[in-house]
């Protein structure tokens, strides 16, 4: 009986395809009051006057609250992801005196319905005295500090050096330099953020339903902000409509709703809408890089050097995880003997930056893969050939690249990187077409290849708590709550195998602080590594627990018992056997809980290498870019469920294609106002623009965990930008187009063509 490795359909689905899902927005306890938020209209301003009186007079309004009305919670959020390099800038739930981005909460309304609450928001009068908005991290570093009491807008500086660092460039035969830009991406889970808070004044307990990726961390933050013991708070993440990293942290609205639910002693619900998602949920990417690569004439890398800026937005809700992960992701699957990265995290008058799928990995990959292409071009070498030369070879693995990250020296485990890349190179017929100019009517065709190294898991712990239910099923609770990944299915597969039980006998519970005491959550592609291995550990202890209990019943020694297909029997005496249901019954009569809890601790991240290859067609009249073919080969480690892995891979890749071709929140540089904060103007990839993907998998078990699992949720999003840019340049060789700024749009291509392309080689 092996469930691991099978393409099992999901136990989650039947509810969800019949409309029975229960997302936060679907939960409205009787007597619920609705909260709506008054948000800053300015990127940077002083609040000179706040008048709540008109709003308070509207029929159906229960209360309107400014900062002075919620003083007990008016303190900065505890810093998320503390880091010695960072001077954290954390917001208070409502802005006091000064607003720092368009969308920052200024006041809140609680009313009988959301309709009334929104009407009342319009009646709150706020007077602003606008201040100059800092919208550029490079100039912003030396601009007047946007935060009262801060010395400067530089929140952190990140520095890594391997070997001789930038000094090694002098040993190169050729140094190529390029400026790269990644736009500000809004993650957009289809379900906007929301919360329902219910206070039981008799028991003095608070229950909240929140679409969060980590119920335990959410509870801790809520407890800190409310001054309430964690033991009095239960956090449940019900069905959650996508997270992608954006729902890892607590937000101002969560604290405001919970506080007001306690104060008003009524359930309070805040359900954000799409516009609020655009102006209040963490955003990402948004970096400026000046990168150099030094190479020998034969293509070998001598050194890679990168200076970059993270446009951090107004606060640091998740510390510097995005900017830091960028630096450690740059070297990727290549042998880079000398490396230096210096990153500056600068606060600006924009929505804060926090992890969005990849959290720096896509940025690092974009830098390295673009450098490889430009170095190859400058050397007159083929772009795949330079990768062949520099990819780590099996005899060099495991390989320590000299960077310490996630508490461990980065150690790349065994893999056959060249073979992985060649699978894609062959599948997309790269060699056949690489030297030809291909036209189809007005369309020019081009191919791009990009590699990546996916770093997953590697921090903290996660648990699995097994409990025998009265009907003989085994319940597994974990703190790693899902937002669509299919945990209940995948963890169930692991548990069924390790317990030797039919899959149907397993039930997985996630996203509830009442179900398991400790947990961290779902992010960084960690759940199968962490909760998966915790499940394996728990299965061992749980079996022993049940065998010991059965041994008492049988008056036998546990060593003389057999565990087979959910039945425990005395060896050699098949008549003396009890099913798990019968054991549960016995446990009930003896008032014993049969449960076992195990926690798996990470010893360092897992790494998997992969390659994407894309063929694009570019229209030479409109400069529209179409994706014609897309090939992927990736290393999933030991794959639990190929169906789910393909879903993660394709889903991530399409988000990467969005970053490559469509998505960027455009902020007016003078005013700091977002210019395209709606789905009408901010384009997400749709079914019509996206191709069919051909995926092959390699499985190199990861040595950092007993099951050999690797995370697979972020590999997809890492290389599409570089691959697409390479393909566009290939298609438009004749015009010398350079695709180093994301998203690369028809307008950008047109402007480059009209200016005669990027002719300078930029070698120094």
């Amino acid at each position, binding site marked *: 009986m092996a469930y691991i490795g099978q393409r099992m359909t999901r136990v989650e689905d039947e509810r969800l395809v019949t409309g029975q899902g229960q997302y936060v927005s679907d939960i409205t306890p009787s007597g619920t009051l609705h909260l709506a938020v008054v948000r800053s209209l300015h990127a940077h301003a002083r609040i000179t006057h706040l008048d709540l009186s008109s709003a308070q007079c509207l029929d159906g309004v229960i209360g309107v609250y400014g900062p002075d009305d919620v003083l007990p919670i008016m303190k900065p959020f505890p810093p998320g992801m503390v880091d010695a390099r960072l001077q954290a800038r954390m917001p208070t739930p409502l802005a006091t005196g000064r607003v720092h981005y368009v969308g920052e909460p200024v006041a809140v309304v609680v009313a009988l319905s959301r309709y009334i609450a929104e009407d009342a928001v319009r009646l709150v009068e706020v007077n602003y005295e606008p201040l100059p908005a800092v919208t550029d991290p490079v100039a912003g570093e030396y601009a007047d500090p946007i935060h009262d009491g801060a010395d400067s807008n530089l929140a952190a500086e990140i520095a890594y050096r391997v070997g001789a660092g930038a000094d090694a460039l002098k040993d190169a035969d050729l140094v190529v330099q390029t400026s790269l830009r990644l736009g500000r991406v809004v993650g957009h889970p289809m379900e906007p953020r929301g919360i329902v808070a219910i206070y039981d004044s008799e028991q003095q307990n608070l229950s909240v339903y929140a679409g969060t990726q980590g119920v335990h961390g959410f509870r801790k933050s809520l407890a800190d902000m409310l001054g309430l013991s964690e033991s009095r708070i239960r956090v449940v993440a019900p069905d959650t409509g996508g997270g992608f990293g954006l729902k890892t942290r607590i937000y101002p609205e969560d604290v405001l709703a919970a506080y007001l639910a306690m104060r008003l002693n009524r359930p309070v619900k805040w359900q954000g809408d799409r516009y609020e998602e655009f102006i209040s949920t963490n955003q990402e990417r948004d970096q400026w890089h000046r990168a150099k690569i030094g190479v020998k004439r034969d293509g070998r890398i001598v050194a890679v050097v990168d200076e970059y800026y993270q446009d951090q937005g107004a606060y640091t809700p998740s510390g510097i995880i995005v900017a830091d992960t960028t630096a450690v992701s740059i070297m990727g699957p290549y042998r880079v003997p000398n490396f230096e990265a210096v990153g500056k995290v600068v606060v600006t008058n924009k929505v804060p930056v926090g992890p969005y799928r990849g959290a720096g990995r896509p940025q690092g990959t974009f830098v390295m893969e673009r450098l490889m292409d430009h170095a190859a071009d400058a050397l007159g070498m083929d772009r795949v050939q330079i990768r062949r030369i520099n990819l780590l070879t099996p005899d060099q693995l495991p390989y320590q690249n000299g960077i310490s990250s996630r508490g461990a020296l980065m150690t790349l485990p065994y893999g056959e990187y060249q073979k992985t890349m060649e699978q894609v190179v062959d599948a997309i017929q790269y060699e056949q077409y690489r030297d030809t100019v291909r036209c189809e009517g007005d369309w020019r065709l081009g191919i791009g290849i990009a590699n990546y190294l996916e770093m997953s898991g590697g921090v903290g712990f996660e648990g699995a708590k097994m409990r025998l239910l009265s009907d003989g099923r085994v319940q597994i609770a974990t703190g790693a709550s899902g937002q669509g990944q299919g945990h209940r299915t995948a963890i169930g597969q692991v548990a069924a195998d390790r317990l030797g039980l039919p899959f149907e006998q397993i039930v997985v519970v996630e996203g509830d602080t009442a179900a398991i005491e400790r947990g961290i959550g779902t992010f960084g592609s960690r759940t199968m590594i962490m909760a998966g291995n915790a499940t394996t550990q728990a299965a061992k202890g749980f079996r022993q627990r049940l065998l010991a209990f059965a041994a008492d019943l049988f008056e036998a020694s546990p060593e003389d018992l057999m565990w087979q297909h959910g039945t425990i029997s005395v060896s050699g005496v098949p008549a003396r056997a009890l099913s798990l249901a019968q054991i549960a019954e016995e446990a009930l009569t003896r008032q014993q809980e049969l449960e076992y809890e195990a926690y798996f601790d990470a010893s360092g991240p897992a790494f998997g290498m992969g390659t994407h290859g894309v063929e694009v067609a570019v229209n030479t009249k409109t400069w529209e870019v179409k994706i014609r073919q897309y090939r992927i080969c990736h290393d999933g480690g030991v794959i639990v469920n190929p169906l789910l892995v393909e879903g993660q891979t394709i*889903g991530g890749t399409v988000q990467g294609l969005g970053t490559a071709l469509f998505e960027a929140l455009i902020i007016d540089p003078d005013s700091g106002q977002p210019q395209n904060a709606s789905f009408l103007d901010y384009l997400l990839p749709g079914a019509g623009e996206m191709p069919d993907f051909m995926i092959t998998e390699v499985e190199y078990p990861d040595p950092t965990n007993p099951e050999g699992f690797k995370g697979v949720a972020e590999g997809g999003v890492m290389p599409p930008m570089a691959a697409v840019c390479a393909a566009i340049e290939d298609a438009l060789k004749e015009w010398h187009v350079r695709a180093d700024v994301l998203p690369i749009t028809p307008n950008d291509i047109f402007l480059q063509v009209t200016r005669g392309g990027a002719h300078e080689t930029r070698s120094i």
Partner: protein
Amino acid sequence: MEITCEVNGQPVTVEVEPHWLLADVLRNQLGLTGLHLGCEYGVCGACTVLMDGEPVRSCLSFASQVAGHQITTVEGLAVDGKLNRVQTAFINHHALQCGFCTPGFLVTGTYLLQQGKLLNREEIREALSGNLCRCTGYQQIVDAVEEAVNQQSANAVECE
């Protein structure tokens, strides 16, 4: 005002304000929370329902507009507890992850199924372009709709 319409085959009479949206009334007054609000301006398609068999955005419709009409929501797609072809195909092809947008896709897919036409992948992608999904990347959704629609059409051809 009071309106009477048919929702998932059942006659319904409900008291609404003239400015209430159909999506809100279905969700809040009738408890049909399957449809979701992803943008509230008609782009994402998560709120799609059928009105007299045609897909409409319930976030762009007033409840008062549906008086006398037939509405089908995701809750009404399965008949006697049996999933329709599109629902079954969505499960088999892993065409949903978080499931938030799924009701809109299922309603659109069911509409395509009811048209009884053979569709190629490009036509299906075009037909689904009014629904946004952030998790799946669409490929498995197209697989599911392709299977459901073309299986149905193949059966219809056999019957003729």
